[in-house]
């Protein structure tokens, strides 16, 4: 187990390093000069050059990548120029470790931008996750147990239809009608736990969380239903029934447990993906999360922020992959980690 973990973590780190290289190659080897965007429209070539130098864009991508790596572990200065440090220290922005870059557009370190926006995305992800897992698994199990009946058809049909609507459509529907037109809930505006307490926090997130959850729930209902039906037809379930176990025990202890393993895998990865910000949902509801930051950064081509976000998200997914594989072994004793 321990050896396995170590190996997976090393593998994850290698993957992350390769990913950062690919990301840098994609962004900095691209035909668009990031400095063009950084210093505005009326920018002389000399100014452009200076901006590029200040941001470190004048180097080749490999050196930029190395600088980035250095920043993550020991921090960096922008611009990294010893002469300037002596003559005009006030023009230098220091970015302490872990430094993911410096956004000139926002005159802030990417790390601190992420620190500001991450709580919103994480809160949203947690609430949405709770709704979709509870709803998805519950309805999925109900549909599987009542297979072929009107309840099953209804649940599967509804989830199929909900799944077909784009997230932004559902989000806007909730936003414009449920919140604004009919006024069933307050107009959604993010509130921290510190400000509004748990209930204030949850109710400020409920509409975007439902929006996200609807999409995932639809998929999870169908998935859970399929897995439960499959495991209900297994021989050991028949055995459990034959030896006289009550129906409830057969369903929950025998059939559901086997069906749960693949669902846990999916759920872990989906949750990790969501941690990095639900770009569309956050844009619809105008929540200041990672997704919104990504959209803004893209609008003015704020490369350091984009690269930082991409790598952060990738790290989430890689970590989640490792956790899920370990969880897999915990839930399913037959799985041996090797």
């Amino acid at each position: 187990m321990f050896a396995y973990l170590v190996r997976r973590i090393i593998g994850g780190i290698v993957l992350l390093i390769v990913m950062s290289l690919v990301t840098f190659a994609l962004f900095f080897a691209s035909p668009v000069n990031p400095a063009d965007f950084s210093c505005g429209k009326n920018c002389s070539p000399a100014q452009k050059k200076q901006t590029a130098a200040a941001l470190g864009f004048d180097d080749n991508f490999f050196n930029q990548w190395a600088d980035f790596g250095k920043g993550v572990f020991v921090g960096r200065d922008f611009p990294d120029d010893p002469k300037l440090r002596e003559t005009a220290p006030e023009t230098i922005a220091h970015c302490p470790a872990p430094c993911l870059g410096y956004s000139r557009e926002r005159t802030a370190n990417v790390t601190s931008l992420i620190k500001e926006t991450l709580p919103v995305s994480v809160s949203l992800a947690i609430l949405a996750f709770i709704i979709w897992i509870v709803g998805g698994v519950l309805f999925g199990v109900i549909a599987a147990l009542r297979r072929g009946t009107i309840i099953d058809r209804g649940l599967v049909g509804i989830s199929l239809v909900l799944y077909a609507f784009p997230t932004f459509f559902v989000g806007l529907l909730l936003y414009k009608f449920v919140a604004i037109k009919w006024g069933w809930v307050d107009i959604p505006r993010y509130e921290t736990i510190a400000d509004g307490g748990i209930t204030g926090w949850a109710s400020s997130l409920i509409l975007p969380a439902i929006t996200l959850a609807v999409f995932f729930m639809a998929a999870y209902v169908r998935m859970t239903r399929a897995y439960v039906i499959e495991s209900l037809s297994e021989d050991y379930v028949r055995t459990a029934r034959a030896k006289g176990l009550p129906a409830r025990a057969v369903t929950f202890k025998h059939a559901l447990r086997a069906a749960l393993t693949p669902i846990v895998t999916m759920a872990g990865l989906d949750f990790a993906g969501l941690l990095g910000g639900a770009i569309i949902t956050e844009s619809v509801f105008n929540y200041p999360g990672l997704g919104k930051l990504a959209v803004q950064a893209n609008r003015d081509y704020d490369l350091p922020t984009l690269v930082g976000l991409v790598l952060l998200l990738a790290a989430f997914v890689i970590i989640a992959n490792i956790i899920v594989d370990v969880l897999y072994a915990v839930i399913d004793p037959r799985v041996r980690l090797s």
Partner: protein
Amino acid sequence: MTLNVSELESHGTDDLVEVEGLEQSSVAGRSPMQLAVARFRKDRLSMVSLFFSIIIVLCAIAAPILVAAGVLHPNAVHQELLGNDGVTPKGGWSGVSGSHWLGVEPGLGRDLGARLMLALTYSLAIALTATALTVFIGTVLGIVAGFSRGIVDGVVGRFIDLTLSFPQTMMLLALSSPAVLFLRTTMADVPGFGVLEDRDRATGLYVIIILAAFGWPPVARVVRGQVLSLREREYIDAARLLGASRFRLYFKEVLPNVWAPVLVYVTLLVPAYISAEAAFAYLGVAIKPPTPTLGNILADSVNYTSADPWFFFVPGIVLALTVVVFNLVGDGARDALDPKTDR
């Protein structure tokens, strides 16, 4: 001895059950394809959705022809149909009338029905091309990885991990401006790629590339799994003994046997890509009007949720219907091709 008999018996009943489940009358041998088609045709829901998806595809094919013939006018502006504010159409229901069955767009008064029909053409073209590219990459890599195993398999496996770690939507956003610029300038200068100078074409191609670039790993995994068991079959050994080349083994011997799961994937990828295009359009990465796509009409319609709700709902419902029927066909195909399914 007793054991043998009971084994035989159990096999016998299994076969009987299967044959009964398919069709009672004929006992003639049928290919797996024929069995699948028979199973598909027995399922009413799948047949109904197949019927509707054929209608949708026919609409998509007919739209550009009708536009060229002067029957559909997706870009004709009808200012006279707009109300006093010059934005929302006259009368309720978005100005639905005999000549404009689905009403007109607010703002310019273009016929919504005509735009949606032509949008189907563009959206389906994008989704189908992206699906073809996804399946091509996934199948080739899956076959190569599964067949050669060892280092090649490991490399493809790591490549899959790498691809899956990238946040797709964020990459789509982040790469859109440089990539589209690259396609329109550098690529358009390459002989034969001059058409890419057009903004819509470059954006469309970018969307297709992104969809395929992030969509192929599941296909590769499924194909690889199939190939791992296929490569141990006798007929592969036989082909190898006869001196078949690697290329022949991969694409003449193995490929025809992995089409079933790939086909299921195709039918499920098309609707997924249609809705992905809509999501991309909302984020501003899509073919821009006046060229209509389901995504850009829908992305425009969300500005009129309260001023013109009909215009908000119609494109959304058309998109959802399209996605639902394609998904149902995909589900039907999966059930029909998988002999283990019982409904």
